């Protein structure tokens, strides 16, 4: 018996015209946490789909050896029967069913006459929930618990299937730091119980924390597997992008001018519960050419602040004053905010930022169609020209501007969103998580764009939960906790420790 639970040997998978995987070999030792790392589109997900039987045997070449046995999975059921369970980034839970019902979905606990035994279902669920450290009533509906807890339910579901190899596809992408920590600790805990895991992740710090080995995939090829002792962030990044990233953040020489935006006593309440304060008397300002960060944990009110400011697209009972270059302005509707030179690029591109079934051209022009109107009609050709200019200047990787934005990678989608707002010619840009779900190479490009905007004398507000990123690109950082500004730090004073301390500062009660 070898020490490897899984060996994927020489896996090659082609799609019409594209070689998605090329002779990939992956060895996962029994009982380890193995990280797979790579840029978006590198082939990580394809490899996992081959492993889990989504792409059945015969559609790829190469061998999969699981527990010393060559396996040929026809579908996901086959792989699950062997104990390989994959948890996708988009959770596969039914929101209106209870935790217990979800855990045993398609694996129902039956009693007499083949009917569902609810006592057994719920008591078994309690045991599984205890194993993943989730204290919730098994009859609670999925929609009533947070994403972090939902992820734990997914893992409990995997445990119910007697999982031997657990695959987690970007499990912490939607989680806040606290939930992420819990999840990573759980992975280590399960490792102690002999469960092997594969984790796909962009986040280098969490890879360093949990994994025993890291395999880096680039352009459909496995570049190398690094043992825990040799893992450094620089080495992973170098493997991922195929070149040295001397600096993860482009050089930025601030050229700060007079104040462009000031917000005073900005307060917003929860839209459904008007007594709940979500943004609490926020005061902040931005100057021309300045990049200002807002650091806060999930639920601190970062997005709530930005969206309530931007045309009151969030919240109820909103109050406070906004001044632009010293003059008070109103931002009661999105149109008013845009007309006053404010732009807001949302944290959730796919849901709030882009029309995915429409092309690049029409997405870029969306917020400023008025500029393209000639004689009452939109000038198609001018629109094409403008979009093409942005495609070149922002380095949007697409064959033409007629490509649908739904087919672009996360980084290129984000460049389209930024193009849209830059074309609206704002004085202040609020960028909410501008690099979420974007691979390392594209992140650098986004940072460079942010710098260029500041260099043009615009004020930029960057909201992010990645502290290194904020520290890397900002000139000044505010910390936000429970809807309140708890600190303001010039970049020289902003260390991760002080920021975290202020980000977790609770209200005096």
């Amino acid at each position, binding site marked *: 018996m070898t020490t490897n639970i899984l060996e994927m040997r020489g896996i090659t998978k082609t*799609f*019409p*015209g*594209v070689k998605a995987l090329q002779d990939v070999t992956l060895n996962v030792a029994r009982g380890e946490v193995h990280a797979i790392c790579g840029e978006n589109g590198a082939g990580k997900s394809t490899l996992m789909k081959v492993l889990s039987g989504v792409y059945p045997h015969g559609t790829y070449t190469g061998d999969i050896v699981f527990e010393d046995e060559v396996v040929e999975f026809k579908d996901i059921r086959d792989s699950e029967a062997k104990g390989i369970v994959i948890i996708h980034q988009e959770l596969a839970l039914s929101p209106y069913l209870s935790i217990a019902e979800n855990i045993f979905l398609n694996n129902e606990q039956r009693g007499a006459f083949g009917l569902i035994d609810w006592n057994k279902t719920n008591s078994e669920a309690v045991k599984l929930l205890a194993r993943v450290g989730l204290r919730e009533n098994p009859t609670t509906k999925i929609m009533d618990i947070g994403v972090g807890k939902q992820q734990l339910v997914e893992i409990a579901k995997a445990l119910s299937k007697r999982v031997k190899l657990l695959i987690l596809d970007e499990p912490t992408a939607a989680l806040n730091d606290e939930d992420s920590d819990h999840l990573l600790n759980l992975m280590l805990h399960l490792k102690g119980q002999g469960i092997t895991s594969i984790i796909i992740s962009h986040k280098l710090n969490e890879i360093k924390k949990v994994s025993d080995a890291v395999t880096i995939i680039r352009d459909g090829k496995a570049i190398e597997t690094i043992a825990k002792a040799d893992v450094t962030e620089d080495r992973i990044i170098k493997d991922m992008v195929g070149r040295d990233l001397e600096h993860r953040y482009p050089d930025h020489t601030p050229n700060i001018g007079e104040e462009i935006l000031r917000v005073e006593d900005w307060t917003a309440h929860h839209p459904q519960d008007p007594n709940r304060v979500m943004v609490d008397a926020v005061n902040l300002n931005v100057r021309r050419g300045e990049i200002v960060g807002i650091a806060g944990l999930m639920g601190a009110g970062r997005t709530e602040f930005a969206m309530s400011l*931007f*045309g009151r*697209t969030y919240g109820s009972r909103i109050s406070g004053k906004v001044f632009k270059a010293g003059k008070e302005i109103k931002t009661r*509707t*999105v*149109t008013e*905010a*845009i007309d006053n030179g404010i732009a*807001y690029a*949302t944290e959730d591109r796919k*849901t*709030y*930022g*882009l*029309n*995915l*079934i*429409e092309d690049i051209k*029409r997405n870029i*022009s*969306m*917020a400023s*169609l*008025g500029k393209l*109107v000639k004689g*009452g*009609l*939109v000038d*198609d*050709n*001018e629109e*094409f*020209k403008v979009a*093409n200019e942005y495609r070149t200047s922002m380095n949007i990787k697409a064959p*033409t501007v007629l490509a649908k934005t739904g087919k672009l990678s996360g980084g290129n989608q984000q460049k389209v969103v930024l193009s*849209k707002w830059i074309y609206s010619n704002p004085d202040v840009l609020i960028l909410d998580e501008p690099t979420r779900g974007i691979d390392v190479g594209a992140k650098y490009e986004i940072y460079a764009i942010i710098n260029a905007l500041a260099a043009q004398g615009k004020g930029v507000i960057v909201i992010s939960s990645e502290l290194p990123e904020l520290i890397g690109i900002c000139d000044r950082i505010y910390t936000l906790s429970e809807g309140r500004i708890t600190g303001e730090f010039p970049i020289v004073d902003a260390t991760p420790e002080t920021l975290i301390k202020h980000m977790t500062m609770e209200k005096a009660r």
Partner: protein
Amino acid sequence: MSDLETKPASNSAAGAQVNPSSSKIGTWLSHVVTDLGKNGIFIALIVVVVLFSFLTDGILLRPQNISNLIVQNGYILVLAVGMVMVIIAGHIDLSVGSVAAFVGAVSGVFAVTWGLPWWLSIILSLLVGALVGVWQGFWIAFVGIPAFIVTLAGMLIFRGLALAVLGNANIGSFPAEYRALGNGFLTDLFGEFELDPLTLGVAAIAIIALVVQQFRTRNGRAAYGQEVEPLVWFVGKLVLITVVIGMFAYALASYKGIPVTLIVLAVLVLVYGIIMNRSVFGRHIYAIGGNLHAAELSGVKTRNVTFWLFVNMGVLAALAGLIFTARLNLAGPKAGDGFELEAISAAFIGGAAVQGGVGTIGGAIIGGLIIGVLNNGMSIMGIGIEWQQAVKGLVLLLAVAFDVYNKRRSGGR
């Protein structure tokens, strides 16, 4: 993708000289194929027409029948124009049949009972339609009730109101000018001829305008460095369209000339085609249907757009009601029965997406024509109404299934 694989093969087989021309043919072919894919609905119409002209021994394409096809389906096509816009925005309107009946009844009161001038009756009726749209648009856009519910309620409300206005009786007969809306013809303005010269003249002008406009668009695109289709294919398509228009005009000219309904339709298609493609309002409709949140956060006044969309639908439903009433010369309680389903079918057969964001005016018109040819062809063949219904249902299902299949093939890896 396929030309990537075939290129090396032809290279080695026939030498480097052949390569440029073969790849040229490749791009040429790929243009033809994408165009065929895009215009699949147009080809479907041609297939249906050819099929039924065989099945009906050519009766389908007789001048009188072609003229009838337009007049009989005019009101459905008018509704289809408004409906496809509503569907693109991600909504639906189930009330248009009832609204058409209601407005038809009201116009009867105006034109017959009260004896108002025909033009005033028509204007007032369209205003009533707009008010109906204001009512429904208010609930949908500003209160936030799903269009399905609001217009389902509207379907009952306006059917009820139509019956109330009619008071269990039919209203007729209408003034001749009013009736012309449904069955009038523009003809014999230049005296009597075997072939109506006005019809042929209008057709000639339409063809010239189309060709000029197409060439200008093409040149404009080329000037901005956009890819344009190969000249041969471009000209070929224009010739094909010219021939179709010419044959159509010839048929109309050898019967009674241009139906008034066709003029109304042509104006609607032209105006709404431009609105949907080139106006900010049209762009906003597509944006709302494609992603409501993104549109809102881009400064689109989504509620206003939705509101005016339903006002517009109300006016078009009223127009359809007028055309139908004029054609029957009678405002009756059963008017507009099932119109909403035919209009919705037309939009979906014409390529509109159930989720919204996708669809064209032209597609909806062709979808409506397919339904019209099916209705007409099967009637000529003497097929009973029961089988006509079933066949139409099946065509709708297959059309959408084909669309879904096509998207999956092009969308998935």
